């Protein structure tokens, strides 16, 4: 088993903002949760009427609390099921399976200053980050963009705790993050961290690059939701089997359902871990990841099964 798991019980569910629920997990065996670094996420496995779903969620609880983990889930309207399942089918007392923490969004140990930029539900990894930065006396500021205050989970709590280090940009009050102004004033040694929908990340990174920021000072976390699409078959050459990918299932999930382990970390098209070689296809690869380069996409030799799909007559991958 390449992904050791932890069996947990849901001990609390709270509505923390419009369409956002917070879940608390404790170990069923009563043991303590693995310590985690701020920025880490877990993968939650869901048994959705016999269908396995696995979604990544940032850990938002205190890293110093080893009794439980907390995540927050935004109910996505056009969700293919993961967030809807968490909102509608998970109750206090339920047992679930989660992964060990995986950290793809760590704080930079030698940064002089940390600028955190959150968009909507992207606030979650910043909660433990701010706690750790605050405790260790490091310099940071948070810029939190949201559609409306009703959707701004944890905002008042953060303002109370961190005061002027928190600023909110609220869409329906006409607020807007002035990225250029924010970045132009930053001293050398500043690192920026963005957790937000992809367009917002692109915007911030675009401005930063224009201003000549070094790539190593830019950090982002985004979990792309695997899009739904027309069902298709995929031949797995090494395993000598064929899997059916249903409309609301990812290729990765359907391969896992066949009992075949594929390495993954983010399950959201960003980390590159699930990269799979395409041996042959007749049709069109629908790349949805942000890992492969344009050239690689055109070459048709690779696919990221966590988010990408296929349309056409036949697809064979190396797995």
């Amino acid at each position, binding site marked *: 088993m390449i992904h*050791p798991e932890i069996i947990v019980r849901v001990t609390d569910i709270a509505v923390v903002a419009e369409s956002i629920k917070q879940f608390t997990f404790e170990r069923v065996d009563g043991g303590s949760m*693995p310590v985690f*670094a701020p920025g880490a996420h877990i993968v939650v496995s869901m048994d959705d009427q016999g269908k396995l779903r696995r979604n990544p969620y940032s850990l938002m609880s205190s890293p110093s609390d080893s009794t439980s983990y907390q995540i927050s889930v935004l109910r996505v309207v056009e969700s293919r099921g993961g967030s809807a399942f968490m909102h509608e089918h998970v109750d206090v007392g339920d047992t679930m399976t989660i992964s060990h923490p995986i*950290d793809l969004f*760590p704080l930079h140990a030698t940064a002089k200053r940390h600028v955190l930029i959150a968009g909507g539900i992207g606030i979650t990894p910043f909660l433990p980050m701010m706690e750790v930065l605050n405790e260790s006396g490091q310099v940071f500021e948070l810029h939190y963009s949201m559609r409306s205050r009703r959707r701004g989970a944890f905002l008042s709590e953060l303002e109370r705790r961190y005061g002027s280090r928190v600023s909110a940009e609220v869409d329906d009050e006409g607020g807007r993050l002035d990225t250029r102004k924010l970045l132009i004033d930053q001293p050398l040694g500043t690192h920026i961290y963005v957790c937000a929908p992809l367009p917002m990340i692109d915007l911030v990174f675009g401005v930063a690059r224009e201003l000549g920021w070094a790539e190593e000072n830019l950090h982002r976390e985004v979990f792309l939701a695997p899009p739904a699409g027309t069902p298709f078959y995929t031949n797995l050459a090494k395993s000598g089997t064929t899997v059916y990918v249903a409309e609301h299932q990812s290729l990765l999930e359907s391969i896992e359902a066949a009992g075949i382990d594929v390495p993954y970390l983010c399950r959201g098209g960003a980390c590159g871990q699930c990269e799979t070689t395409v041996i042959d296809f007749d049709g069109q690869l629908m790349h949805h990841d942000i890992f492969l380069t344009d050239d690689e996409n055109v070459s048709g030799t690779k696919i990221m099964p966590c988010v990408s799909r296929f349309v056409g007559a036949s697809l064979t991958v190396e797995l």
Partner: protein
Amino acid sequence: MAMIFHDETYRDDFSFHNSPESIRRYPFPFHEDSYMYAINMENHLPGKPGSSYEHPIDVDEHYVSEMRDRAIVLNEDPKRCQALPHMMAAQWDTLELLMTNKARSYPDLFTLERNGDLWHWINQPLGIDDTFVFGDQSTLPYEPMEYITRQAQGDFCIVDQRNDTLWMDAGMVTCQADWSLDFDIGMNFMEWHAPVPMAHELGIFDRALKFLMNVQQGRPVRRLNWTMTVNPRLDTSPENYHKWGPDKTTVTAQNIGSKLHLRCELQSFWRLPRSNALLFPIRQYLISLNDIATIPKWACRMHRVLTTIPDSIAEYKGFSRNRQLALDFLAPFDDGRELTLGGEPE
């Protein structure tokens, strides 16, 4: 069976020796008949009872004497233990990982009681009984990494992960195979591997780096590395080359069996939880050719491997001078028979 710790030395009279059980549990690194430079990573899962892999952090009969040797080295050269300032969280991570693993694997030897941040640690073999506050370094006699690695066999490096690479930013290095922490500290992965011949051209380090950066919490990995050392000396550092370098000229056909030692390194890699750094324990196991010769498969296998090693590698590993003597010693054990794959002694 209770562990009996040897009282032995790794310098001067070199009284280090392996018991027959210790020979059989040796992590013999040659799994096939020819030599290939490869970074063969595998999951660091518990191995067979009695093997060096049984517990994630291995403690053996040499524990007490190895720790004594470390204290001597540190006394002469405190720079063998260094940590850059941003590594404090990783130091505590390391202390926690080593204490919890040892207490779990060897409850007769080590105990850890945790009451919130108040920790009580008993190390029975070394006669240590300390109470301290986790996270408060003023409550320990040394910084956390030094404190716990003065009680743990093998060298330890802690590497930070940033800018898409790994940085050697802390370590306790007193029994290394000819590299220097003081020289490498603050270097990145490619810089500190620069001296290894061939591997760069093969692209091995690019792949290894990518692999290591993806090592996840709860899923440590390991690999074996090896070299040869004349006399069972742990401290073969460049700083002390003048002490051990000349030993190489003392090997003769008569004494090679007791003088030349295979030095296997069991390297494991652990993602640390608070700091997201990687802990990299490098555990050395020494065994003389005479001891290897008690396991016919190993002596035969080693003869074949040494025959196929490229000169540049023999040079890098520092045994080209004594290679022929070693081959002569091992040749009688190689009767051409077929050997099973793997490092098991059978």
